[in-house]
């Protein structure tokens, strides 16, 4: 029987669990996402955690606005999305830039290193330019060892210094998808 990603990870605790712990250590209580294979473990951990809100979005820009509302009420949010979702967020990022709202987003990449699906390439290649154009600081994670320190650094920059920060989980880290 095929194991789900979470079940596989119950036997071998991966970097995703450590990233979740870092987010909780930063007192993140709102985990928003459009379902995505690259974030499946983090999403499942947030669903299983009674101390947090796990928020399934219909489109990624809702997660940007959600993070702004969370900040008005003194809570911390993280937006987990695939690279294609970055394109859906652009106009709402003006709220973060203009309002100096903190934003932490984890972006699981498609359309770059080793990609075989041509539909993923345009948005994948545009992720960093469009985020940077909207004032979002981008930091890459290429190996499992980099994941925890990068998310920790990004969370500090977002929540303590009111920046919008994207942690880019590259296909070098996640592996190019076989489909």
């Amino acid at each position, binding site marked *: 029987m095929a194991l789900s990603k979470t079940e596989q990870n119950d036997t071998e605790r991966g970097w995703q669990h450590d990233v979740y712990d870092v987010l909780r250590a930063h007192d993140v209580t709102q985990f928003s996402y459009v379902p995505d294979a690259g974030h499946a473990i983090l999403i499942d951990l947030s669903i299983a955690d009674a101390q947090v809100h796990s928020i399934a979005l219909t489109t990624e820009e*809702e997660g940007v606005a959600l993070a702004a509302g969370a900040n008005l009420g003194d809570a911390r949010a993280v937006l987990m999305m695939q690279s294609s979702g970055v394109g859906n967020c652009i106009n709402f990022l003006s709220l973060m830039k203009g309002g100096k709202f903190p934003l932490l987003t984890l972006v699981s990449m498609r359309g770059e290193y080793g990609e075989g699906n041509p539909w993923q390439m345009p948005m994948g290649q545009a992720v960093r330019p469009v985020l940077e154009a909207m004032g979002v600081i981008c930091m890459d994670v290429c190996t499992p060892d980099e994941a925890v320190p990068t998310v920790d650094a990004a969370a500090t920059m977002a929540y303590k210094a009111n920046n919008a920060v994207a942690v880019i989980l590259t296909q070098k880290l996640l592996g190019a998808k076989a489909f």
Partner: protein
Amino acid sequence: MAKQDTAGHAPKFEMDRCKAVPALIGNHEDFLIVSGLAGTSKDMASLTGDAANLYTMAGAMGAATAMGLGLALAQPDRRVLVITGDGELLMNVGTLATIAVLNPSNLSIVCVDNGHYGETGYQKSHTSRGVDLEQMAIGAGIKMTCTVEREDQLGDASRLLRETNGTSFVVLRVSPEEPPKVKRLMEPAAARARFRNALLGRP
């Protein structure tokens, strides 16, 4: 023949928003408030004297409802009111589904529906052409909904906004007339700091 709405008749866009919005909201201090761009932000800045329990917007069209959700989840002991127009709500109407799944009991949403995009010159919106936002909210799974198009319906709707059994949603149909003219804080970071200072005692 005009299309029928949830109540089974052709929609009436007749009430004066400058009277109907204050009558519906009542004491604004019952709420933390996020208002959508243009008309509803002017409604609320006028009603509250641009108070610190209000975060108004003038851009990021479609963001108000999801912003209210984040605030409601962050402040479970306070009532949160989102007030937005039909044009803005239509832009991210899927957020009603996101909210309905969570059904936060301290969140209320008002859509001031004038059937038009007032800010850009009163072009007809979809609600003038048969789209029923209450029906869309019902379809999303929001349990407590109503549409107000006459003054005698305002009292029940005002009570619905203060219900604690789950998220409520009110469509307030008004005529396509100008919202109040009012000065408000237009700098979004200053507005953020003002809101947080009033709520939390620090920026």
